């Protein structure tokens, strides 16, 4: 039974492991999380789910799996129905209603009917005696008078909520997507290599011994950099337009990168860099950050990574007023140079296939602007990009060649 639940969770893509399942069983054998389905729910969540952004999915799977199976749970613990029955005052019911409850045919039947009703019903319902909603005499819903009722969502008048997992309280937390592809994890290892530079503040024991021996036994302490995250990254993502096609790939990179750095800031732009960028794409028109402010805010140490397909009309890069969204007084190329003068460690990641790079004029131009620091959004490409990020671009900017 529980093994079935476990495989159900795994099938739903929740990362639960055998060790965790065994722990769950161990707990149950020690009487933790038994006696009541809510306790079991909490304990199962405690054991199996290690990320609050997965709570919502767990709630759904739990609901999906246990709906209609409470009866099976009752076989082990037969005091649940009584507790639920005590929720309402029986005397408040008319004889007629009591008869109706009897007519429903007890708990098992009730749960089956509930599952069926949930499927049938597709709108909120309040009052009445059949549909799931509030203040009615239907057995399903909350705040009602049916003694055998199952509360769904909401705060009840009496007792505590029976099934918290149906409230979907963690819906908002399920914003993060799991990074799936193995490729990206490998690529990230190289990002991590980059993050392991730092101040020389730990004792280099081997170096000290060597130096001391050379120094005829007089102590000569050598220090070296500790391995730590000290790299700050500024991520600028192209969004909208021709990039929609690649946005999934970009988001993967983004969600992966978020955890790897101590300071990671991201902003969005459309097609090419002009005088402003924005943080929240839904409020792109009134909540923008100007590029000079970006340069003032983030120090020279920040590594700048552009992600974009660089596929557009060449005018959008080199001409004033070239932007497709607004009138820009200065061409994007100028803004790009300004950014490069400040953020000398920068690269451009391009999800477009390299075959097209030579034949697309705007990519050629931007590559030139980036001093050939354009790389594909692939494992090897990212590795090359990380290597390139270790050195600054040379000071003599060849922007005038255009």
């Amino acid at each position, binding site marked *: 039974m529980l093994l079935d639940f476990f495989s159900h969770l795994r099938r739903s893509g929740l990362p639960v492991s055998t060790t965790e399942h065994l722990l769950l069983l161990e707990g149950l054998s020690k009487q933790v999380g038994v006696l009541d389905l809510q306790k079991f729910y909490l304990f199962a969540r405690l054991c199996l789910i*290690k990320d609050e952004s997965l*709570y919502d999915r767990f709630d759904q799977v739990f609901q999906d799996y246990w709906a209609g199976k409470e009866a099976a749970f009752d076989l082990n613990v037969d005091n649940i129905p009584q507790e639920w029955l005590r929720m309402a005052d029986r005397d408040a019911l008319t004889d007629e209603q009591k008869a109706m409850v009897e007519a429903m045919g007890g708990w098992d039947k009730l749960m089956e009917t509930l599952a069926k009703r949930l499927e049938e019903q597709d709108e909120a319902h309040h009052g009445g005696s059949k549909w799931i909603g509030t203040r009615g005499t239907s057995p399903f819903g909350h705040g009602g008078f049916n003694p055998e009722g199952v509360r769904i969502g909401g705060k009840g008048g009496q007792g505590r909520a029976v099934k918290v997992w149906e409230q979907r309280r963690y819906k908002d937390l399920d914003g993060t997507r799991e990074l799936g592809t193995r490729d990206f994890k490998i690529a990230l290892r190289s990002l991590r290599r980059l993050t392991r530079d730092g101040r020389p503040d730990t004792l280099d024991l081997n170096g000290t011994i060597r130096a001391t021996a050379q120094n005829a036994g007089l102590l000569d302490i050598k220090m070296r950099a500790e391995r730590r995250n000290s790299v700050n990254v500024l991520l600028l993502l192209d969004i909208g337009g021709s990039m929609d096609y690649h946005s999934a790939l970009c988001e993967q990179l983004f969600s992966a990168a978020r955890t790897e750095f101590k300071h990671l800031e991201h902003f969005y732009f459309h097609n090419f860099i002009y005088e402003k960028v924005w943080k929240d794409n839904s409020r792109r028109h009134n909540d923008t950050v100007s590029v000079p402010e970006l340069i003032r805010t983030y120090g020279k140490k920040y590594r700048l990574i552009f992600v974009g397909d660089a596929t557009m009309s060449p005018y959008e890069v080199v001409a004033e007023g070239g932007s497709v969204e607004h009138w820009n007084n200065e061409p994007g190329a100028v803004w790009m140079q300004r950014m490069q003068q400040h953020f000398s460690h920068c690269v451009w990641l391009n999800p477009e296939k390299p075959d097209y790079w030579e034949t697309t004029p705007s990519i050629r131009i931007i590559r030139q602007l980036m001093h050939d620091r354009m790389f594909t959004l692939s494992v090897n490409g990212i590795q090359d990009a990380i290597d390139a990020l270790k050195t600054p671009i040379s000071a003599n900017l060849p922007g005038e060649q255009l």
Partner: protein
Amino acid sequence: MSNPDYIITDELQQAVDAAITLERPLLVKGEPGTGKTQLALEIAKRLDAPLFQWHVKSTTRAHQGLYEYDAVSRLRDSQLGDEKVKDISNYILHGVLWDAFTCEQRAVVLIDEIDKADIEFPNDLLQELDRMSFNVYETRETITAKQRPLVIITSNNEKELPDAFLRRCFFHYIEFPDKTTMERIVAAHYPTVKQDLLKSAMDVFFDLRDVPGLKKKPSTSELLDWLKLLIADDLPAEMLGADELRTVLPKMHGALLKNEQDIHLFERLIFLHKQRNGQRNR
């Protein structure tokens, strides 16, 4: 309850009970100010167990929690010809876990803000937390826990923790308290607060938390601080501006809004709101 100030929800209570029964570390996450660190102090108090706190920083290394070998002192002593130098155990400094493992009764260990440390930090502690024992290489002894301590780990979600580590822990996410729980918390701290003041303050507080785009939402501890200021000044409830939502910056807002941008954002909202009201009145 030993300390009526700390309100523990049923869910959290159950999580703690499970961690005690099954002797697994409990990883607690949640918004700042939801009392994650307080939890360990509270458990220690309720269990009447000694508490060992380990506050993790970005420079903390895993072995510092076990022990440190003070080679520099030993070097100095050897130069001075001190007798102590012959016994290496004189230079082993005990860490938090060492003390907790060798404690006669069951201890509570708090590893605070584990996500602050290096990415490898949790992995380095896997074995120690799993087997509750570790080796001291310098003296070739093994320290094993006499009684498996209850380990509470808090995280602010700054870094993702490795899967292998998570698999060995229980995980509980402390939700931000709803209004009823919050009322209980406030009542526990300030039992004598005037009801109308409390009601307006709560309205302002939860309203403020709903403002979209706030950089830092005010948390429980900030609400408590703010109330303290309000009570100290004995302000009447009307002064808080809860009736006309977002028409004035709440009194003593500095206790709630800790970010310049947030205050600006809030002022802009007030401005917009006033404008809208003005249009309606015309």
